[in-house]
């Protein structure tokens, strides 16, 4: 979050959101991103601030069930929104199938990008239709490794765990255990 400069007149607004099933009302600076709201105001530090301009995907959350970069979402524009972060994927102690698959397939090294990868994959498994790499644009293509790579292309992993991320996502998509 950009710190207010001396002499700044800070405008605030109240925003009410449902985060991981819980209703939260906060008063925030109107410039606050959803990412800063989650991390700084709610203490949900799972979503990571990698680049703060939508390039890395480490802040990916689900807004209304669809994946989005929390750093590019203006918090006060999301009054009434339903947000799911990585903290909300598991059902109590039962891991989300993607979390379980990421562990089983060793789909990370340092883990920094993992919350974003998980939320992105969870969103991706609910999205259909052709992508930029689909040859036949009239159908709903199978989730081949190539399709998964294209559909996960908004999430960078500097450790280069892509090979096993693709395996983990493939395992969940073929098991039909997607949420």
């Amino acid at each position: 979050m950009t710190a207010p400069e001396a002499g700044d007149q800070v405008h605030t607004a109240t925003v009410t959101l449902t985060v991981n099933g819980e209703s939260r009302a906060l008063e925030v600076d109107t410039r606050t991103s959803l990412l800063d709201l989650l991390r700084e105001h709610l203490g949900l530090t799972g979503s990571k601030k990698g680049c703060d301009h939508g390039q890395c995907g480490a802040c990916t959350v689900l807004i209304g069930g669809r994946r989005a970069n929390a750093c590019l979402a203006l918090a006060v524009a999301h009054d009434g929104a339903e947000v799911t972060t990585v903290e909300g994927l598991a059902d109590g102690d039962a891991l989300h199938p993607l979390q379980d698959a990421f562990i089983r397939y060793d789909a990370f090294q340092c883990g920094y990008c993992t919350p974003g990868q998980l939320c992105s994959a969870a969103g991706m498994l609910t999205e259909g239709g052709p992508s930029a790499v689909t040859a036949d644009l009239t159908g709903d293509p199978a989730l081949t490794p190539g399709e998964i790579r294209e559909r996960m292309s908004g999430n960078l992993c500097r450790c280069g765990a892509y090979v096993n991320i693709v395996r983990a996502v493939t395992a969940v998509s073929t098991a039909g255990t997607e949420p």
Partner: protein
Amino acid sequence: MTTRHPPGSPGSAAVEFLRPRSLSQALAAKAELQDALPIAGGTDVMVEINFGKRRPAALLDLTGVRELRGWQRDGALLRVGSGVTYTRLEAELAGLLPGLAMAARTVGSPQIRNRGTIGGNLGAASPAGDCHPVLLAAGAAVEAGSVRGARLIPADAFFLGPKRSALADDELITAVLVPPAPGPQQFAKVGTRNAMVIAVCSFALELRPGAGVGTGIGSAGPTPLRARDAEDFLAAELAGSGLWESREPLPGAVARRFGELAAAAARPVDDVRGSAAYRRHALSVLARRALGWAWDSYRKEGHLCG
């Protein structure tokens, strides 16, 4: 509008936040606060805010304006609301506007496409905006609304310079009016990888069987451009040689010349993404390939129609 505050004192960097609930409220707000920056998906605006590059006096959040979020037929045209996201262009308009859907599929990442809108792409007026070449090729018009009324700005008169458009200070982009594709459309783009890139250059093409050709060049000039000489050349060749009727293979010399003329229409500069010479060369290749793909589809359609 939830948070009206009095305008800040001189030198204040506070951001007033306006959240209109209807188009009339949005237009009234824009008329009253003309330097308010419209924000929809936020995928452009938030980058500038997060990095302190821009401190708009006010943000005008358009996500609550229902009128901007739909698309429908409007006589012979399609009226695509400015708040329609790239994801919806891909999912809902691939049949009617295939070129626009193709361009939408190459924007940013799925996360960006779920949020970013066609109106935001136009409003930013970047020479590299992915929708722009397609809208130029399709002969689209941008609908600008204000409390004074609505007007249509042809796409090829909308872009005035880098990040400058013909939009007046009190106007908002309300919709894009575009004819459903009369024939094959194509979009091709060069970048350093497939995802998350700003185009090094891009090219869009529309074939209008029996009637002509539309083109659009992206990221190779101060604004998106039409390649008018290439359009005229190809339209004359297709009509003069009876190719629209015969659907014969396109002579290689015609495709090459079309590529050369498309490249000649560009006004590229050297920058971090590529040199002017590379952009010109890449454009000639993109234009030739796009034409090949579009002509192949046209020939196949003819085969299917018997």
